[in-house]
């Protein structure tokens, strides 16, 4: 009964940023999706996912992130990721996810890149 993922939502320079803490497995992915859909339902089109607090993900969790990307592409919005471990970034590249979502090293460049 490993702790479930903690998800927090904050505004940074007008942009909604979702912070995660813990393992992104299927429950973890669902937690993120819940918060993300709330933001999108509120009319926003851009979202930054700061994964600094996540050191491990699995492919079930990632496939839920693909659902979020699909939703965002439909409304011609944009999903960004920042603060990924090297392995998570590499995994996103292996999957080709990096073509459909922006990957930033740190939050500052993520906020700048997505709002600029």
């Amino acid at each position, binding site marked *: 009964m490993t702790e479930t993922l903690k998800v927090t939502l904050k505004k940074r320079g007008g942009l909604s940023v979702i912070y995660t803490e813990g393992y992104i497995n299927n429950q973890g992915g669902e937690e993120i999706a819940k918060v993300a859909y709330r933001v999108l339902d509120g009319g926003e089109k851009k979202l930054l996912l700061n994964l600094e607090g996540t050191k*491990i993900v699995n*492919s079930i969790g990632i496939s*839920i992130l*693909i659902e979020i*990307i699909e939703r965002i592409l439909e409304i011609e919005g944009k999903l960004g990721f920042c603060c990924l471990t090297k392995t998570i970034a590499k995994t996103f590249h*292996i*999957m080709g996810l990096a073509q*459909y979502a922006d990957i930033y090293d740190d939050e500052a460049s993520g906020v700048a890149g997505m709002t600029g």
Partner: protein
Amino acid sequence: MANHALLREVTLTLPMVADMEITASKTATAMAEHMGLGADQTDEVRMAVVEACINSFEHSHAEDSRVYLTFAITGDEQHEKLEITVRDNGRGFKTSEVEEPKIEEKLKAERKRGWGLKIIRGLMDEVDIESDAEGTTITMVKYRRAGRGK
């Protein structure tokens, strides 16, 4: 402890219970650190092990509800490698029938899943899968890059 190289094999048996893959990932981490793999390589190994475990948990339908892992450090000091096997006694699958996932298609598809094997192959240096009606064994190898702990 005569044959030191051969001796460095650890076996782990896990119940198919949610989150037990984390135990496998910690064991993998310990073995990777033991042989001096760097932090990034270690991280890649543990992610691959997690994927292999959840595949067995989810798809094998093994009656004994267990996954059997081995972690072996082999090779000489210059060319050491970590070889990991993840085995289940489940119903198996035909690797040739597994479709290669494509992100363009998955973005529109109902089922977004199907990434585990691709991720494992992308993160490990060698991957071999043997599967039949008696079960599945996936063997994954990571070589230590020159320059310890890099």
